[in-house]
Structure formats: structure tokens, C-alpha cells
């Protein structure tokens, strides 16, 4: 979910793993992010320039992200190769996704990325929920419906992280 703190949570996962003595491998798939609080091992921004994609194809923000992801998905086999190669060394590989559910979960490229990843290495979905916003029953319910739809779409093991629990 957009704005639920995925990137921040990833930073926390990153630092927590480091503290636990097992540095993770981190992949950033969000082309539109301005600044990352962690250093990713693979960054989609190195491959695709989101702003250029938007300009070149005359797209809006979401279309730009989607096209960037589509372009990146064509090279995702390379990413899988690297991940497979590093699989013996690292305990976790974290993948930071774009926040827009329709952009990642319901797009062809997102599907390709998720499924090829799940076919290569054990994959767990981490659905990050913005807890304070869930105070409204309707928001909570739509959040859960999204989570449910993603679970049934991917059929992958699923963990929901209720983020911002301190708020």
C-alpha cells in the first residue's frame, strides 16, 4: 500500500539483519523513489530512468512506473541469475516494490517478477499495512480485501506487517 512505509520498513529489515550478523541482499524495484535510506544491491534506477521513460513515452507517473517495470522485467532473468548465485551466501533477499498495488500486483511485469522469483527461490510476501489509517473500519476492510486478493492471486506465503505500530 502506498505510503505505508515499505521503504522505511525495508531499511529497518536491512539494519536488523546487519545487526543480527547476516547481511541481506536488497533489490529496489521502485523506479520513482527519490532517495533510499539504504544502499540496494540491485537498483531498478540504474537500469531505467523513470523520468526519461515518462518523457519519452508521454506518460504520467503511474504509467511511467509501469513502463519502467515492464522494461526492467525484460532483464529480470539477469537479476534471478544473480540472486541464485548469491542464494547460498545470504539469508534474506529483500525486494522493495512500487507502492501502487495496481502497478505492481496487477500488472504483467509485476506478475512475471513475482512468479519467476517464486519459481527460483523461496518467496514470502510481506504486505505492509498503515496501521493508524486502519482505525477507520472501511479503510481497514479495503486493506484486508487487497491483502486477500494478493494472497489468492499469488498463492504465496503471506505475512502482514502492521507498520507504524508505535504511532
Amino acid at each position, binding site marked *: 500500500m502506498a505510503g505505508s512505509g515499505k521503504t522505511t520498513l525495508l531499511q529497518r529489515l536491512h539494519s536488523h539483519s546487519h545487526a543480527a550478523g547476516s547481511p541481506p541482499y536488497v533489490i529496489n524495484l521502485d523506479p520513482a523513489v527519490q532517495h533510499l535510506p539504504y544502499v540496494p544491491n540491485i537498483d531498478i534506477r540504474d537500469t531505467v530512468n523513470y523520468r526519461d521513460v515518462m518523457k519519452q513515452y508521454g506518460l504520467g507517473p503511474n504509467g511511467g512506473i509501469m513502463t519502467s517495470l515492464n522494461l526492467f522485467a525484460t532483464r529480470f532473468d539477469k537479476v534471478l541469475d544473480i540472486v541464485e548465485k548469491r542464494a547460498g551466501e545470504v539469508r534474506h533477499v529483500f525486494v522493495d516494490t512500487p507502492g501502487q498495488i495496481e502497478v505492481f500486483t496487477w500488472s504483467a511485469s509485476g506478475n512475471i517478477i513475482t512468479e519467476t522469483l517464486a519459481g527460483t527461490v523461496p518467496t514470502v510476501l510481506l504486505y505492509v499495512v498503515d496501521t493508524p489509517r486502519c482505525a477507520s473500519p472501511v479503510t481497514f476492510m479495503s486493506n484486508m480485501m487487497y491483502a486477500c486478493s494478493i494472497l489468492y492471486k499469488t*498463492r504465496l506465503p*503471506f505475512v502482514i506487517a502492521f507498520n*507504524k505500530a508505535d504511532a
Partner: protein
Amino acid sequence: MRDFDSFQQALDDAQDPHGAARRRAADALQAQEVAAAGLAGSGAESRPERESESGAGAGAEAEAGVKGVIAGVEGRAAASKVEVPADDGYILQLTRSMSLVLDEFYQGLRYAGVSALTGQGMNELFEKISEAGQEYYDDYYPEIEATKRRRAEEEARRVQEGVDRLHADAKGGKSTGVGEAAAQTTAASNGLVGAATAATHSAVAAAASGPGAPRSSLGRGVAMGIDSTHGDGGASGGKPAAATAGRVSSASPPPAVTSECRPPVITPADALAAAQSQEQRMQSAPRIGVMANGRRLEPSDHSVPSSKRGESRSESESESMQLAKARAAAVAAKQWMDAEENERVRSKREAVMLSGTADS
């Protein structure tokens, strides 16, 4: 605008004096959120709700919406329990039914309350992730392996089917199609000048390796045409070319209309071309040819059993005879082509009649 109704109902519950001002809120989404928050608030206690309503009355509607949400959250927090009042508002009904739908989903739900900011609950989250990783091996992995295996089997079966079909085609081609025709041609012309045989072979091969490969009627048509030409030539060498042509044209259509043959559209023209090329080759081919199996064909090659040879084939048949036959085949093919053209123009019924007469 059903959610707007529920929103209004929420306002009524709170006995809002500024309901009319809020009713003008155009944004349905905003109205929805306000309604939900308002409901939650009114369910808990009416104090924060009133606060928000007074805010709404004083300020802009958008601001009122946001405040309503905040107030609703506060009110709910004060009650420390989600209290959804008995109501028949649309959103409430929807939320209720959705929550029932999600019951099954909640049963096996793995969750962790975390804070990315403070690091609270991270250990729990990692535990859950490990659990989920185990679940991947328990549930997803066997499934994906089964899928992979099934796909591999399907692929293997598909390939095997293709190979079988190819074998069947090759076999069928030998017994009924090009192979047989070629064999007949060989047998018929074995006693002939070797060069002519080689040329015939290459002509048939050229035609057969065209668009249709072994199953093409093209190769068969040509082969049959040549075969019948030879047969005619063998049986009654002195027959006029027209008779030969007639024989060819009556012999040729069946392969074109049998179901396993390709559409006859490409057949006649190619047959004509093949026949012409045969003629050309005959003119230019060396007198001693090499058959497809590598055996050299001498003009007086007796290695083939006599039973396979043409019954009354004379070994000394001249090359000019061959040329004449090739021309006859070309003429026949042309006639056939014309016939095909006519047939295409005519109606289906007439076509059936035509093929009937052609057969007879």
C-alpha cells in the same frame, strides 16, 4: 450515492445542525471516509463527533472531512473497541459482509505489528517470515514442482506426437504418396535412359520438397502425372499426346480432392512448373545419372528386378520420346490447371458433378 445516504444518517445520529453544509460535499470518496469516521465516532461517544461537526460548520468542507476522520479515530480510541452501530447504511452493510467474507482469510493469517521507525516487533516479524518460508516449502514448492513436471510431460508428449506424426507421414508418403510415385516412376523408367530417370527424380523431389513436404498433393500430383505418362508411354508408346494428357488429367484430380491433401490452389501451377523443369532437365541432364540412393544409373541398368520394371518397357526408348512425354505432362498439367480454375469458379454442386465425371 448510497454511501452519501449513510453519511447523512451518521450526521443525523450525531444530530448535526450543519448537515446541509456538509451535504454539498462533492467528493464521494471523502464523503465515504467522513461517514465511516463519523459512524465510528458516534458509536463511541458523541463528544469528538460534535467537535468535528462544529469544525465542519466553521471551516471548509474538505477540512471538515479530514477532521471528521481524526475525530472519529479519537472517539474510537477512547472507546478502545470498534463499535459498529446497528445501521442499515450501505457502507456498513458492505463492510459487514466483507468482514464475513474475510473470516476464512483471517483464520490462517500471519501477521506482526511492527514499527519501522523504532524497530519494535522486528524479531517477531522475522519469526513470521521464517514460518512463511517454511510454508513455501510445504505448500507452494510441491505445487510448483508438480506444475513444472506436468509442463515437462506435456512438452515431451507434444514432441513425441510430432515425431510420431513425422514418422507416420514419412511412412505414409512412402507407401501412398511421393515415395510410391517416385518408386513407380523409377520402376517405369528404369529401363529408360538413366539421365531421364535422374531428371524425373529430381523433378519429383523438387516438387515434393516444396511447401507441403511429404503430405503435399503437389508432389503426388506431379508424380502421378509422370507415372501415368510413363505408364501410357510404356503401354502404348504410339498413342497421341492428347490421350496421354487426358489420362493424366483424369488421374490427377483425386489427390487434389482427397481430404489429406493440401488445397489444390498451389497444385496445378507447381505441377506445371515441375513438369517444365523436368523437361528442361531432360534436355540438359547428362546421359548417366545418379539416383537419389547414390546408385549410378546406366542406360542398360539391369540390377533392378524385372518385376519392378515397366511390363513392356523397351530399353531403347529414345530421349525424344521422353521429351515428348514431358511436354505431354506439361500440357496435361496445364489442362488440369484450367480445369481447376473452372472448378473454383463453379458452384460446389457442379464441382461434385465434375469430380464424378472425372472419376468415371
